[in-house]
């Protein structure tokens, strides 16, 4: 008897698709460690010590006896920005899909571990318009229909200006069409972050964005509870 085909997990399906969309415009798939130093997870991203903005992300810490310097489970994929910029000269175009961790109570819209997609573009004369254009391109492809993007002011220590990004699908007949949906945080890479990686902000600028892949799946497939991704239940996985 034939063995029926298995199913690829929706998160990795989305990552493969995201990579195919971004690789067409030259964004390199990049990874970094999940066990990250405090320095890369916070300090290098212009998040000051003892500052309320560190509270934005509740953090899992490693025991100090197990590590040579303070280490955390990365709370975002942003540390890979600094790791990559240190080793590469601009122009830089990368995406970083990966698992991240937050020490917070879980519910249908929050998991203590989830997948994030980071994007970074550094070159001469990169501006917020490039961020908008890139995201409109990505969402239009990912959601198979013309999509527009708008910005609202926001704050993240590693970007300035920082923006909240909403998207609206203009075509098709799905549930998403016609509604503004908040999808991610983004902005222009903070000059302190660039300088920390020996990139001169007087010559180069760039945008960075970060969004939850789990949430993209909520929108794309109608997943109702983000915890379902990580139960190992094939009644879930085998629908994809």
């Amino acid at each position, binding site marked *: 008897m034939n063995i029926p085909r298995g199913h690829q997990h929706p998160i990795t399906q989305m990552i493969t698709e995201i990579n195919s969309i971004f690789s067409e415009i030259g964004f390199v798939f990049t990874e970094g460690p999940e066990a990250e130093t405090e320095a890369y997870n916070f300090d290098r991203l212009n998040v000051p010590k003892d500052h309320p903005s560190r509270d934005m992300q509740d953090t899992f810490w490693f025991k100090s006896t197990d590590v040579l310097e303070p280490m955390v489970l990365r709370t975002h994929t942003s540390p890979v920005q600094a790791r990559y910029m240190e080793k590469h000269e601009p122009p830089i175009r990368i995406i970083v899909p990966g698992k991240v961790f937050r020490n917070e109570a879980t519910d249908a819209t929050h998991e203590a571990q989830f997948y994030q997609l980071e994007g970074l573009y550094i070159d001469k004369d990169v501006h917020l318009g490039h961020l908008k254009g890139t995201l*409109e391109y990505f969402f239009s492809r990912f959601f198979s229909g013309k999509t527009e993007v708008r910005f609202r002011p926001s704050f993240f220590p590693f970007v300035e200006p920082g923006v909240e990004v909403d998207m609206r699908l203009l075509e098709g007949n799905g549930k998403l069409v016609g509604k503004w949906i908040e999808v991610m945080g983004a902005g222009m890479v903070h000059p302190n972050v660039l300088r920390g990686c020996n990139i001169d902000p007087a010559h180069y600028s760039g945008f960075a964005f970060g969004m939850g892949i789990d949430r993209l799946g909520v929108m794309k497939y109608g997943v109702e509870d983000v915890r379902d991704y990580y139960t190992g239940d094939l009644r879930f996985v085998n629908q994809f």
Partner: protein
Amino acid sequence: MKVVHSWLKEYVGEALPEADRVEELLTFHAFEVEGTELVGEESVIEVKVLPDRASDCLSHRGIARELGSILNVPLQSDPLTVPITLPSTDKVSVAISDTNACPRFTATLFANITIQESPQWLQQRLLALGQRPINNVVDATNYVMFALGQPMHAYDADKIPQVDGVRHLGVRFASAGETVSLLAEGGKNEDRVVTLQGTELLITAGANDGPIGLAGVKGGRFAELTPTTKHIIIEAAHFDPATIRKTARRHNILTDASKRFENAPAVQLPLYAQQMIATLLQDIAGGECQGICDVYAPKAALPPVTVSVATVRRLLGLSLTASEVEQFLLRIGAKVTTIQEGVFSVEAPFERTDLVGEENYVDEVGRLHGLSAIEGVMPTAVPLREINSLQYYSDRVRVALVELGFSEVITSSFQKKGEVQLQNALASDKSYLRDTLRSTITTVLDTNHAYADRLGLTAIRVFEIGTVFHKTSEGVSEHVALTMGVRTKGNGYTAKDDVLLRESIVALEAVLGVSGEWQLEKGVAELHFSALVASLPVPTAYHPFSKQADVTYQKVSPFPAISRDIALFVPANEQVEIVATELVNTAGALLVRHTLFDTYTKEGRTSYAFRLVFQAPDRTLTDDEVATIMEQIYHVVQQKGWEVR
């Protein structure tokens, strides 16, 4: 931060639009808004002040100033531009032991205070903010805090020991083990004694510097106001934000005051707060201000920031003129001097402690102008510089294993036992990081075998590609593991599982063109995938991606499924699809899966055997319900002239 619309209007003036328009202006030019609610007669807008603006916008004046900048109107009444007319007094002295921890401490002395209820208008404003009015003096301190963002505290001045007619206050660090008795929450009459570690800053009184409050966090019981209080001292100070933050967190006393102090409000604010409260107390408590004691160790002012129009344009992607940029900078209240064509020297208004670099002004210009003006521009496409090996080979493995009948899972990185323990785990059964995927894959096999009928599978085949963690002499190390598992029997591992697993491994290795060092045990095989990938040739291009048809996910029913088998003889020329459709249509919505598991043809007839799986989305099905459905199926089958075996 909740703000009362009428209170904002007091500062902005008639130019302030209605609450819904205020919401919209804030949303697209400043802050997210949670919504507006009507409390009594007052429209109260809940603003999510961004962390970088908690220094000036946890206040009505801050939000009003922001709206004035957005609307391009000057404030009709601005409490931060009033002249400071308080006389100084030598009846109060303040000694600060560490001016880094407390750069400024102001104390005003009031006489002839009558403690009573606040007037209605004041009570209403506090109630609109969800605050409980207490008495006129305490309400006044809270009012000024919500007005200007400067926390204040009132002491009964007659309880502060005097030396030669001078009331002595101090600010010093606690010594370890020292205790302070604090005011209870919500005006409850109870002692709340906190034992200190030595990192906390204290407000003290008298020649012996006894503690009377936890600086920046909570006032103490020692000089608490009573209904008969006649003289009061009002404190408005500035503390090191990190010190206040640490204290509030260590003792878990998070107050409106500590929230403001830890966000570095301007060091100039205390004087304006004292000026405002002096006027207020005169009106509502009959208090006569005897004067102010202002101990201040000013730090060097931040140098002006050079802002070039070229940078503003370059980062925003907007073609703004120099005079447009200048206008936006003026709108936030900055002092702007032209250094050369298109280059300004900019001094922030004192309350904007967040404006320290050119990038901050770029942000100001962008949001005041409106981010909606930014047009999307596609970056020019460039060739891909690099193919990521881990992603490339992970995808190869996924495609190959899916072909071999394996489904991919992603399981928790946390487990009950392991090598690497977290400092602060979510739960006791999640306090270690996984050092292998073996145990979660075994659990996944166990769990899913129970769903085999529901899934239409005879064996469960799963894999995961995920990070595992180890303790080494160099700290914590991690690598990516690839783990596969097979389970053919519901009651656990059997030797057949390993046989099937080995066959699949051989097939996978044929695709990859390399063999790996698998740890195979009890139906689960794990491989150091990072090491394997490193040994494989560097890929030169990703496989083309083919977009799948859209999937719409259906919530998995948590209720158990019931399986029934049915075998039928049908004429040999009858298509299996016809038979299946007949069964599906008859069974109705409760039939969630049908699997053909046996077929043979004999003497001009074909036998089809189906497993039918029934499940309800909202309840546990009973055997009787399923039996009724099966009866209907038998009935229809007979009508079709098919024979149930």
